[in-house]
């Protein structure tokens, strides 16, 4: 109910004499009492969505969104920037509407610590933010300690991950542009779970698309730490055996041990591979702040949550969403999934803070588009319903599925999807 309607309602209630039993509402009509403070850390698909939806559904909750970057850069579609079909500014959206449109306080800064006893967040520079509920949406960090040769800043400038969109994406694109024709681009994929299962295979397609047009003697090597493609296998193989035959080569079970930075070589258990442009996607864990808050309780990597509320399994009043979570069975670490986590978390947090019952039948969904070239797209979709017996989200049988084949129609839909979801989180 908007303020205006509430006021009108109360006037009418008084006029009809119905206000007697509703006197407790008068306070909220004139001076809305705060229902408490929420701090959200991380303004990606999950965090920005949650911040907006909490304010939309409960304007009297005070919401602060802490984000280290000045603008959101989308990982989905960043492979199109690598392939040259889009520019980085086309996948960049500002945070400017969250304040004026919804009343979210956006604070640009780095959250450096969480005191879960005192319920405060500390930012670099010393600012302290108190919270009644904290929502962590920190995304991923990279486990560079597992790749000794890459565990320093100089090496990481030479061998990029480009698995967080932004300057990394631009830098890897520049390496591809500088590569002479006849060169090798190799993408090294970590063992699952990692952010965006089909992303590396889409990346191979986009780089191959660029090579076919501009550097036709060049090759793409997909060096996968997994025993097989982890997503959309048939759809990607159709492209690799079709339009990219002779350009893309796939090798499974390539578990990265180290890199030799000088020679741009990836070193695997039984093999090594030099590349002109070497792109290592390192193994991942929840973002650092989740570890500092003490909620990354699964193998020192991911955060287990109660999926009914997204509250941490180990720390009270701290919620975690998105890629940082220990995913429910068959739930991918994707942007669309995190957007849905954000809304689910918002609903649960609003319920918990306003004293209404938590939704005991949440249902969320995923749609993930991958670009095969600059026009044709394939998707995978799934629906996830909370299962009371299993106490987690389960993938609904009979729902979800894949595109039958790469097609132009879904290319149009994919572009629309990006505009729509960026607006749903930031508009």
């Amino acid at each position, binding site marked *: *109910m*908007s303020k205006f*309607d509430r006021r*009108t*309602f109360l*006037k*009418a*209630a008084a006029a*009809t004499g*119905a206000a007697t039993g*509703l006197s407790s509402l008068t306070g909220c009509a004139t001076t809305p009492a705060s229902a408490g403070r929420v701090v959200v850390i991380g303004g990606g698909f999950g965090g920005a969505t949650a911040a*907006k*939806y909490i304010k*939309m*559904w409960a304007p009297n909750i005070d919401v602060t969104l802490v984000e280290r970057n000045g603008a959101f850069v989308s990982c989905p579609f960043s492979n199109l920037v690598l392939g040259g079909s889009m520019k980085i500014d086309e996948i960049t959206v500002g945070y400017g509407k969250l304040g004026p449109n919804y009343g979210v306080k956006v604070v640009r800064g780095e959250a450096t610590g969480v005191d879960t006893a005192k319920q405060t967040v500390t930012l670099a520079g010393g600012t302290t933010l108190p919270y009644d509920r904290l929502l962590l949406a920190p995304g991923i960090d990279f486990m560079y300690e597992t790749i000794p040769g890459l565990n320093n800043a100089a090496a990481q400038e030479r061998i990029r991950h480009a698995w967080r969109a932004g300057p990394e994406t631009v830098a890897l694109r520049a390496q591809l542009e500088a590569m002479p024709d006849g060169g090798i681009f190799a993408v090294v994929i970590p063992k699952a779970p990692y952010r965006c299962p089909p992303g590396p295979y889409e990346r191979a397609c986009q780089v191959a698309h660029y090579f076919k047009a501009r550097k036709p003697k060049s090759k793409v090597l997909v060096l996968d730490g997994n025993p097989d493609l982890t997503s959309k296998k048939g759809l990607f193989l159709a492209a690799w055996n079709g339009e990219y035959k002779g350009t893309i080569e796939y090798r499974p079970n390539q578990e990265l041990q180290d890199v030799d930075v000088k020679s741009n070589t990836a070193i695997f258990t039984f093999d090594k591979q030099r590349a002109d442009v070497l792109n290592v996607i390192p193994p991942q864990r929840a973002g650092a702040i989740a570890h500092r808050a003490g909620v990354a309780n699964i193998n020192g990597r991911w955060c287990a949550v109660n999926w009914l509320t997204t509250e941490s399994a180990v720390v009270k009043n701290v919620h975690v969403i998105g890629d940082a979570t220990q995913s429910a069975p068959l739930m991918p670490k994707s942007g*669309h999934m995190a*957007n*849905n986590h954000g*809304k*689910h978390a918002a*609903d649960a947090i609003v*319920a918990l803070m*306003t004293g*209404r019952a938590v*939704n005991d*039948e*949440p*249902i*969320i*969904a995923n*749609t993930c588009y991958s670009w095969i070239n600059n026009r044709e797209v394939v*998707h995978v*979709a799934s*629906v996830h*319903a909370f299962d009371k017996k299993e106490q987690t989200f389960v993938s*609904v049988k*009979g*729902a*979800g*599925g894949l*595109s039958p084949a790469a*097609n132009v*129609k*879904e290319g*149009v*839909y994919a*572009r*629309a*999807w990006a*505009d*729509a*979801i960026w*607006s*749903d989180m930031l*508009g």
Partner: protein
Amino acid sequence: MQISRVAKRAVLASLTSAALAGWTTDGQAQDYKARAWAASCGGCHGTDGRTEAPEFPALAGKPKAELLQALLEFKNDTGTKKPTVMHQHAKGYSNEQLERIAEYFSRQKR
């Protein structure tokens, strides 16, 4: 007058559904579960079904019957148009859930 009629309906709703804890702008009790389910659709169809992309139809303010029919056709593969993804989503919900989602969107401002 439009506003006082809305307000009167709100009062009636409040009297009948007592402490149901929430009202929508049209004075009906808020179906929080349906709102949470419907929120998922916003990723493509726009927040509260107010579309930002012409490729995805607006859902806000559409008649409930029209929305429900479309959802059931997706779910049962009985529509005339071949969907790309909606049939895969609609199969994830019971008919009752789809009806409540349709009801929710029908009440949103266009």
